[in-house]
């Protein structure tokens, strides 16, 4: 029983205890969960240190499924990539747990909530620590389940229940491809363990397979199939629709699952399989552009939304797009680096938003807020820091990771240049909408009702402390990756080298300066614009809204993705089910035959019955006729 096993196991134990006995502990049950997560956090720290010293842990606990040549075990692979994920997951999870103590106080499902959180932590840890695809898949689905539970936590609200279901099913679409990818991997590589897979990759090198007529390189196909999973989990186009609705869940959940950890699993997957992705140009391009376009789309949507959580959610989507963009150009390290920093400042944003909601009594519309900085200074300060960080103001975490990505994208040939362009634009938009939130929420005068105003207060310590801790993260997290240009050692980049490699840099320092300058410029520009529109000239947004009505409506309706899916997938399926299958195939055709034949026989019987007239002579005729027929037949066919 060694300590690595404890990392996922502790939360699991916490879950089991709480789900069974939570009722008895009533509002004390959070201690169990927090202790459990804290435990695994500490162990993860130790592990991280070990890994940092160059140790890589990879071993099987027990063999899970054995069927013929199909052998998969539950096991751990803890390398640099996993280590960093462990830190992210456990730390953010821990803080969110603490935060929830205050946030969820007095809720009936208190124990339920904490046990779910524990379960999620467990699943997420299983996901990142697994040393084979199937265990990854296990964690993959498990975190999906937890998000289903937690999104639908307020299951009495129809919207919440729907959102949970939607999240799960949309993810299933992604997993559909992912699963097939797993099958392909097994069929062609005959193993699901990472090390063996990467060792055998050369087998599929250059192989092609015929899919619906067109020849596709096997690596490309497998990579893309796996990427399907990533798309679903990380809410990339076209499967991003669930994340915004996921905000129905309690805010801590959004912070933990839909910002910091679960949604980044896709990035983790891609990074984990970088050797495979590196084998296929096409796959890389697809990844890069999916990321880029997603981030652009999400950012544009975020511009016009009024629901504070949704805005943050879309910014999450957009940041995830950034990470994929990074992976797409081969800068896996940068991607994971951004994942690392993003975890903190985005979690901070969410929790801040949560704290705002807490104060506003569940009010989410930023149009109905304003001037909150007086009432809740800590929240304001931390929120501001996080926004600076995400906007990419130099010195803060977001700046370094984002800059790394943009710079490496710029490096990566023509396609790289294109995505770099998009990335830069997105950077500007990000700065804009983040500060739109800031200005509308914390500046100006309060626009809500009086009783809300009366109710306003700073959140309790259990909530503000995590905010402050996360703020530290949001500021400092980037310092592990200061590029050499700015006098740093890009420690983390080198840390990742053994697992993720590092794209070779061709461009000059001048270009790098240029990239930095541009990104800073757009960031500041974004902030400035926001300030102009929401502080100095509050009328402007309305005017613009009217001026660009069509664009505004499209953005407001999130490019009509939900409607599209509703009309192309959901409704047709239900229609076919009820009209065709139940109505026609089952009821008419099959049942028709099943019930028709007996009925036919019955009717025939009724007819036949008429022959049995009860009149003696008719019977005699029958007999004579029988005799006659037999004789004639026999005589006809008889040969002397």
């Amino acid at each position: 029983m060694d300590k690595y096993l404890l990392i996922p196991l502790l939360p699991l134990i916490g879950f089991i205890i709480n789900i069974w006995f939570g009722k008895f502990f009533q509002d004390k049950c959070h201690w169990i969960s927090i202790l459990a997560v804290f435990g695994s956090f500490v162990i993860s720290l130790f592990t991280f240190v070990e890994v940092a010293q160059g140790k890589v842990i990879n071993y099987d606990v027990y063999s899970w499924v054995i069927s013929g040549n199909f052998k998969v075990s539950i096991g751990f692979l803890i390398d640099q990539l996993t280590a960093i994920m462990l830190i992210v997951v456990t730390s953010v999870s821990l803080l969110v747990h603490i935060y929830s103590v205050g946030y969820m106080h007095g809720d009936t499902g208190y124990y339920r909530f904490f046990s779910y959180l524990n379960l999620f932590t467990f699943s997420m840890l299983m996901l990142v620590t697994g040393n084979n695809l199937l265990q990854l898949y296990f964690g993959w689905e498990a975190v999906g389940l937890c998000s289903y539970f937690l999104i639908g936590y307020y299951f009495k609200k129809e919207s919440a229940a729907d959102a949970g279901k939607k999240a799960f099913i949309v993810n299933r679409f992604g997993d559909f491809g992912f699963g097939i990818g797993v099958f392909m991997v097994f069929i062609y590589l005959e193993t699901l363990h990472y090390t063996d897979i990467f060792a055998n990759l050369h087998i599929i090198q250059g192989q092609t397979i015929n899919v619906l007529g067109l020849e596709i390189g096997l690596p490309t196909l497998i990579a893309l199939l796996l990427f399907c999973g990533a798309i679903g989990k990380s809410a990339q186009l076209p499967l991003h629709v669930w994340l915004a609705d996921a905000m129905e869940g309690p805010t801590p959940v959004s912070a933990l699952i839909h910002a910091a950890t679960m949604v980044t699993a896709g990035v983790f997957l891609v990074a984990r399989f970088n050797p495979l992705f590196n084998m296929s140009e096409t796959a890389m391009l697809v990844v890069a552009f999916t990321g880029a376009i997603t981030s652009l789309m999400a950012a544009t949507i975020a511009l016009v939304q009024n629901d504070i959580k949704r805005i943050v959610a879309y910014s999450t989507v957009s940041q995830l797009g950034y990470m994929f963009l990074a992976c797409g150009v081969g800068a896996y390290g940068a991607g994971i680096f951004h994942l690392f920093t993003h975890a903190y400042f985005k979690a901070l944003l969410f929790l801040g938003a949560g704290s705002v909601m807490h104060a506003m009594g569940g009010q989410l519309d930023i149009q109905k807020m304003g001037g909150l900085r007086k009432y809740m200074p800590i929240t304001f300060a931390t929120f501001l820091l996080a926004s600076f960080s995400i906007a990419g103001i130099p010195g803060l975490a977001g700046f370094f990771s984002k800059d790394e990505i943009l710079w490496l994208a710029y490096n990566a040939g023509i396609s790289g240049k294109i995505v770099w362009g998009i990335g830069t634009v997105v950077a500007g938009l990000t700065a804009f909408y983040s500060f739109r939130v800031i200005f509308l929420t914390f500046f100006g005068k309060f626009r809500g009702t009086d009783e809300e105003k009366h109710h306003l207060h700073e959140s309790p310590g259990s909530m503000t402390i995590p905010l402050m801790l996360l703020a530290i993260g949001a500021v400092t997290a980037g310092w592990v990756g200061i590029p050499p240009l700015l006098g740093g050692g890009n420690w983390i980049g080198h840390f990742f080298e053994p697992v993720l490699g590092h794209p070779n840099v061709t461009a000059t320092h001048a270009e790098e300066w240029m990239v930095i300058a541009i990104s800073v410029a757009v960031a500041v520009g974004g902030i400035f614009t926001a300030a102009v529109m929401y502080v100095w000239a509050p009328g402007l947004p309305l005017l613009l809204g009217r001026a660009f009505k069509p664009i505004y409506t499209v953005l407001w309706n999130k490019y009509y993705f939900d409607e599209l899916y509703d009309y192309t997938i959901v409704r047709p399926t239900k229609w076919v089910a009820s009209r065709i299958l139940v109505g026609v195939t089952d009821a008419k055709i099959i049942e028709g035959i099943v019930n028709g034949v007996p009925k036919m026989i019955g009717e025939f019987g009724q007819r036949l019955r008429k022959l049995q007239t009860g009149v003696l002579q008719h019977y005699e005729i029958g007999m004579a006729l029988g005799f006659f027929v037999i004789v004639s037949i026999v005589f006809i066919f008889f040969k002397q």
Partner: protein
Amino acid sequence: MVPLEWYIILSAVIFVIGLTGFIVRRNIIIMLICIELMLNAVNLSLIAFSHYLQDLKGQILVFFTITVAAAEAAIGLAILVALYRNKAVVDADKISEMKG
């Protein structure tokens, strides 16, 4: 010398006449008579056979046939009487309580 076939054909003709009558007549008594007719036809053929085959089994069989015919007549008429007591008809086709 009359060939055997003539006798047999004669008996067959009478047999069939009896049969036809049995089928087409409504009156039960006549139907009974028709049965007697058919039996007699058979007897005729049997006697003819036994004569031409120089063998007496046929005549023995006729002997039994007559016995059976007598018994049948008795029972048939008894049934008819019983029936007539309950329902005063002697037309077979009027007696169709049970059908279907």
